[in-house]
């Protein structure tokens, strides 16, 4: 593993761990949702490092997985925001 790969792998895992912490430990729904997004960013970063294969050539498969993963995460986040609004308006009633 090159030093750059090592650095990116460490950052990817750190993002994942921090996001997991926010998702599990934060009391505020919006923070939890952001935590899940940060977790996702961690996984996507790892996939991007993976795409930079050992031989230096780029592997398109992890890139495609990242695009799919991002779209899924955006959709889940949108649904989460709508649900947060629903819980807030329900608690006002």
């Amino acid at each position, binding site marked *: *593993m090159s030093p750059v790969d*090592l650095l990116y*792998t*460490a950052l990817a*895992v*750190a993002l*994942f*761990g921090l996001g*997991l*912490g926010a998702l*599990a*430990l934060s009391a505020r729904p919006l923070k939890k949702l952001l935590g899940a997004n940060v977790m996702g960013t961690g996984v996507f970063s*790892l996939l991007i490092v*993976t*795409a930079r*294969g*050992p*031989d230096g*050539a*780029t*592997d*398109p*498969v*992890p*890139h*495609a*997985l990242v*695009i*799919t993963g*991002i*779209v*899924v995460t*955006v*959709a*889940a986040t*949108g*649904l989460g*925001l*709508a*649900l947060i*609004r*629903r819980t807030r*308006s*329900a608690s006002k009633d």
Partner: protein
Amino acid sequence: MTVLVGVGFALVSLALFAALVATPEAAGLGALARSEIAETGVSNPVTAVLLDYRAYDTLLELVVVLLAAVAAGALAPRDPAPAPLDGPVAEAAAGLLTPGIVLVAGYLLWIGSKAPGGAFQAASLLAGGLILLEVTGKTPPPRSEAASRALAGLGVLAFLVVGVGVAVAAGSGVFLDHPAPFAGSLILAIESAATLGIAAGLLALFRAGTAPA
């Protein structure tokens, strides 16, 4: 307790990092994806993966966008729309930027077959343009909830029609298999529909997730 769990997560992350460092990387599929690319009808390998090799992933991903848009619309409280941004800056931004955004989105969609770009990039940009119109009070179409949902299903529709249509017409029965001579055009057709569908889905998610001012 919180501190304990936090320390636990940190240790788990460290263990994962150690495992990743200790594991030699495999060669990946880059070489194979390139050697077969002539069959796919596109020359951008990422688009080849998304719309041909792993087109089924992309279909399910469009289903996620569609179902999230429908669910968010159904679940969000029916509040009055937030007050639009106004003033000369907002006016100019919406008026000047939107045509350019639509144009660039179209370009990204088109170029995706040979260079970085494609339906998702185009759709996010297009949705950005629509949201710009939305927040400046120029409510872009689709205006009704029903139309918005039907439009968000466009990408799934294109995948099903082309996937089933070709399987039946070619007699192979293999879903999502695009015959080589038409593969490029079929992919562009699916991507165009997917661009509109994803953009409609993202706009619906924005509308559902925006709280009134």
